[in-house]
């Protein structure tokens, strides 16, 4: 019987099989941020086990609240900063070099096809875009990852999602994944890997694939995963050029991870996206999704463009396409958080930041901040936000606030009109 990509990665990293249902894997990259790591660090210290399994395999960043907003967040930053220095973790990113973890770490070339990746953050599934098995974990899993370089998982089952057709102008990866979550529901993929294949995925950039995989967790999935190909190899080329003679050779090598033709899937879903229209959430669950036309006219108070879902350069470009030469509505506050310093610098160079600012957006430094109601754009009771983020849970962006998830294009169109708007009307 053939293997899926996830099964191949599991087989290549198998440390132990404590029961037929459970496996212990060796982990290639353990990623840490300042919200879920400090308690792991202080616990290890208290146990007299303040060690790390491999300083080169640990990556750390301060991204959720940066710069610190108060004494408590300053302390969290200090704990992870002191720890990174103490253990000489070279890949630690602090103010001036920091950005949203799931945008920053791929940009640095840390994620490679066939890798196993964990982080104390549920959107770690983003990195499956590179053909890696990447899973969000809790602080104890992270702690064991830091100490031992292993993590436990149940034997993976994979759901294959084949996406065909062609996306209309104004429709993006965000709309595709929102539609898939609506179809699967918030626990439709629990304990499963979502493998995204088909011509639409093959033609997507790495940025779009990351958006797709980022929200796999919103259907309950352990990981979203794409098959690594030429697009992957080109993105990674600056980091792998010493390792491979040519991009062709890298592409060939990456193919070892591709699922076998006779691999078994627990579920198959096929989707023709030719007629898909922009999607928007309502309510308090990411599977509560309607077409933009059904949501058209819903008033908003704030528009937020950023996050690990949609804060990358392509996202800024597509929003700027709509915003160019326009002003946002008087009733709306616009906030842009480029996800990383590189995205910010590139957006400056391309004139995108000027477009956002002339339209009336506030541009913040790279941070997760507003997405989870921590800082830089928290909602007041009863306020409504059109957001390119990933969760519309009750209270997510501020107690009593309401979040509508959408693509950067739809968010930009909404900012201009002051209410939820179909971006196709403004292109």
């Amino acid at each position, binding site marked *: 019987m053939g293997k899926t990509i996830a099964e191949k990665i599991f087989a290549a990293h198998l*440390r*132990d099989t*404590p*029961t037929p*249902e*459970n496996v*212990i894997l060796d982990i290639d990259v353990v990623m840490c941020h300042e*919200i*879920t790591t*400090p*308690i792991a660090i*202080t*616990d290890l210290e208290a*146990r007299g*086990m303040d060690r790390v399994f491999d300083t080169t395999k640990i990556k750390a960043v301060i991204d*959720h*609240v940066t710069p610190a907003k*108060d004494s*408590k*967040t300053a*302390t*969290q930053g200090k*704990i992870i900063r002191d720890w990174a220095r103490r253990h000489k973790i070279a890949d630690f990113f602090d103010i001036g070099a920091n950005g949203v973890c799931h945008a920053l770490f791929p940009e640095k070339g840390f994620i490679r096809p066939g890798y196993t990746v964990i982080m*104390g*953050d*549920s959107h*770690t599934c983003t990195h499956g875009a590179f053909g890696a098995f990447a899973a*969000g*974990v*809790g*602080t*104890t*899993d992270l*702690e*064991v990852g830091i*100490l*031992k370089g*292993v993590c*436990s998982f*149940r034997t993976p089952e994979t759901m294959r999602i084949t996406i065909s057709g062609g996306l209309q102008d104004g429709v993006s990866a965000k709309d595709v994944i929102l539609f898939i979550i609506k179809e699967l529901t*918030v*626990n439709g993929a*629990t*304990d499963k890997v979502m493998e995204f294949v088909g011509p639409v995925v093959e033609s997507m950039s790495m940025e779009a694939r990351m958006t797709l995989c980022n929200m796999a*967790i919103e259907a*309950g999935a*352990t990981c979203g995963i794409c098959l690594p190909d030429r697009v992957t190899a080109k993105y990674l080329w600056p980091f792998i050029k010493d390792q491979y003679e040519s991009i062709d050779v890298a592409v060939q090598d990456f193919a070892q991870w591709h699922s076998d033709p006779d691999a078994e899937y627990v579920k198959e879903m096929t989707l023709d996206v030719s007629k898909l229209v922009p999607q928007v959430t309502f309510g*308090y*669950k990411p599977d509560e999704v309607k077409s933009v036309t059904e949501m058209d006219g819903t008033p908003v108070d704030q528009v937020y463009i950023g996050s690990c879902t949609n804060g990358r350069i392509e996202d800024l470009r597509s929003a700027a396409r709509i915003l160019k030469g326009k002003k946002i509505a008087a009733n709306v506050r616009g906030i842009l958080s480029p996800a990383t310093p590189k995205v910010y610098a590139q957006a400056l160079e391309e004139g995108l930041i000027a477009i956002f600012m002339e339209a009336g957006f506030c541009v913040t430094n790279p941070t997760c901040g507003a997405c*989870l*109601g*921590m800082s830089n754009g928290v909602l007041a009771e009863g306020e409504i936000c059109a957001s390119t983020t990933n*969760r519309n*849970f*009750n*209270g*997510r962006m501020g*107690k009593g606030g309401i979040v509508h998830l959408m693509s950067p294009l739809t968010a930009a169109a909404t900012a201009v009109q002051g209410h939820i708007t179909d971006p196709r009307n403004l292109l």
Partner: protein
Amino acid sequence: MKEFGGNALFLDRNDINTDEIIPAKYLTENTKMALQSFILEDLKLGGFDPRKDIEGKGVIITRANFGCGSSREHAVWVFEVNDINVVIAESFARIFRQNMYNCGMLAIELPKKDIETLFGLGEAVKIGVDLAGCTITAQGSKKVVIPFKLNEFDKKLVEAGGWLAYADKNY
């Protein structure tokens, strides 16, 4: 090993997420105990008052997909520091379930019909858990005994007092 059992708190809703269990704004706390009073603060459930309803409870009984969303282990710790070491649900989100066992706590999955039985026992229900025999005893308007399945590895984690202790010994 922790003690399992106590008075039941019924949360009659599917898809209760970890933002509702412990809002992100409290994730800046650097001790588990500091989370104690914020338990279930943003839970969207008619008539639920976390300050009153948590009092004296040791077990949560709920519906499908409990603990979905964020990976925050704070959602497990906030139960632990309120002496709630067992959650019984129709199903769990993967990370929450793993976090429970990693902390040596129990996330017990029961078929829908058994969850219905528990919800049908009235408001005052006391739950006993027999880990060796894998049964739950619920004493409410009547007494029922319900068997449950426990993954062997999860059981080892509970017996070891959590994943860190188990991993340190074995890897």
